[in-house]
């Protein structure tokens, strides 16, 4: 398949992470976080998702570049590539 899932998945998590961390930064220390034991959860978790998303995205980009550089390799002898 020509679409590397890691690219849209990384993008989505980067966006969600960015939204959460910007919002979390703007509201840090507010009464909003009373329910969460006064932890700035939006900010921390937003940053975590941002990093995860960026990592996934970069891996996807690297994978795509690799796939473009080396054309599909021929099946090694003895390997059954069924369905091709």
């Amino acid at each position, binding site marked *: 398949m020509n*679409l590397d899932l890691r690219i849209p998945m990384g993008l*989505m998590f980067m*966006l969600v992470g960015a*939204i959460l961390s910007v*919002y979390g930064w703007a509201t840090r220390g507010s*009464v*909003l976080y009373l329910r969460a034991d006064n932890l700035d959860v939006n900010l921390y*978790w937003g940053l975590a998702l941002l990093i995860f998303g960026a990592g996934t995205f970069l891996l996807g980009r690297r994978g795509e570049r690799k796939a473009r550089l080396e054309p599909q390799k021929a099946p090694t002898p003895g390997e059954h590539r069924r369905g091709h």
Partner: protein
Amino acid sequence: MFGHTQLTAIDWMIMLLYFVFVLGIGFALKRYMKTSKDFFQAGRALPAWICGLAFMSANLGAQEVIGMGASGAKYGIATSHFYWIGAIPAMIFVGIFMMPFYYGSKARSVPEFLRLRFDEKTRALNACSFAVMTVFSSGISMYAMARLIQTLHIFDGLFVTLGLPLGWIFHFSMLLSAVIVLGYIFLGGLTSAIYNEVLQFALIIAGFLPLVLIGLHNVGGVSGLRAALPTAYMHSWRGMEHASTNPLGVDAFGLAMGLGFVLSFGYWCTDFLVIQTAMATDTQENARRVPLIAAIPKMFFPFLVILPGLLAIAATTPRNVTTETMVNGTIVRETRVVSKAEAEGHGLVPAKTDPLTGKIVLDASGKPELDYDLAIPSMLLHYFPSGLLGLGLTALLASFMSGMAGNVTAFNTVWTYDLYQSYIRKGASDQHYLKMGRWATVGGILLSMATAYAASGFNNIMDTLQLVFSFVNAPLFATFLLGMFWKRTTGNGAFTGLIAGTTAAMVHHGLTLPIEAHPGIHGGWIAVLHTYPSDMAQNFWTAIWAFSANFVVAIVVSLFGKPKPESELVGLVHSLTPRAKATEHIWWKRPEALAVVLLVTVVVLNLIFR
């Protein structure tokens, strides 16, 4: 029940973003769907890790996330048996021993494998019952989701703002999930379903992990949790020698045989819903790796879905409180008003309310009954501020959709290949079957919606359906086990065995009753010969009887018949199939090595939480 859930723009933004990406993936994949093989089998070209995560996620429906949290709140850590005795050994078995026959036989579906191995009638029986079950299961998922959205008042604010009647929320929720799931499967087929299942898997972790972390922080860490709960909650094997000394009401034999062997192997090793994802990989060795890769996150899922249930019970029951805080020099007062159901509950698990009268349901001793299914949802609403709340609710919706999607793609494949192409229209062009698959998706979703509406009209229909499924599913594993490992098994043997197994399940259910239940849907509708300490014990023993009946009858009937010639069974039966040469020469990269690591880890986990 719960007060209005106040969702802010941030929450809606996150939810909307997810829907955009889900449909976007469908659109991006549309141009690759050229043949029916692309659509139904993802072109057999996906990487093992993607299929592995999808293998696990296809099972992450409503039952999994909501049900495991509920069980965790009700029974404690013992719920982990569903993972560490149930799923993991079965996943290892299907990867190491069974996948070579599924993948290598070139069958395009599990019923088709049954035709190759046995005969046409066994396939027809399996294909029909499977098609019906997938549609009903996806309907049940849909119904559960719409009900949850209603109970939690997620869309109430939106509907009030738009001036729409609140009574439409149920229909709107159903339509929303139907349109989204239909959209991405119609466009991108199995590939799209698999990609989205992986996305949903990641989202469920992103939404639930902070819940566990905040919940743990709130009760004072693991030691605080331990102090707040009865000791039995933290041990999974204590009191298992006898059914009456543990909360599950099951003894170790019933557990290992009923759940560990018959039910779990029956589900993970024969259900096309999960097998289809493994069959979408590019090589046989990768297909064997898929269930093993899936077993890695599966093993740790109890910490994500069962632990919140325990945390919900351990938390302090909410009361009306007013908190005063200084924010930027001004005193801010926040009052949380607690509903009656919440106040009467235990921890964060609310009491059950009668949907008609709105009154709290009391048990026989006059204490309020707890609504365990709301353990996880009420945790989300209690701990998450807006922002994270949007993410958590999106994760919850994602889990329902991923359960639906797997059923829908399994349905369109079995319908098109095993029923339509085999009995209704043979020999049409590939493009015709591709088109059929797309429209079967529409048909499957419409039927699911019909099921969901039927479920909302008749209270018992969901329980009845699930009961019937269990009769049909319980004996299945015996058929596959004999088919793959005993070359003498005949088509007649397999067919009569299946019928005998289902009959045995029904008869056993009709003759036994869990304690404190009335004869009827819970059993005992023929006569009550035996009572079980819990419905779980009854379930496990129904499965054991069904499996045994199928196993014995299939062997006896096969011995009287003439087996298929051995030449026709190459690639379908273990003893007649030459062992595929390992393509991976580094020993620790082979599937067997991964299987050993998994087994050791699962034993260690059982020991830690014994």
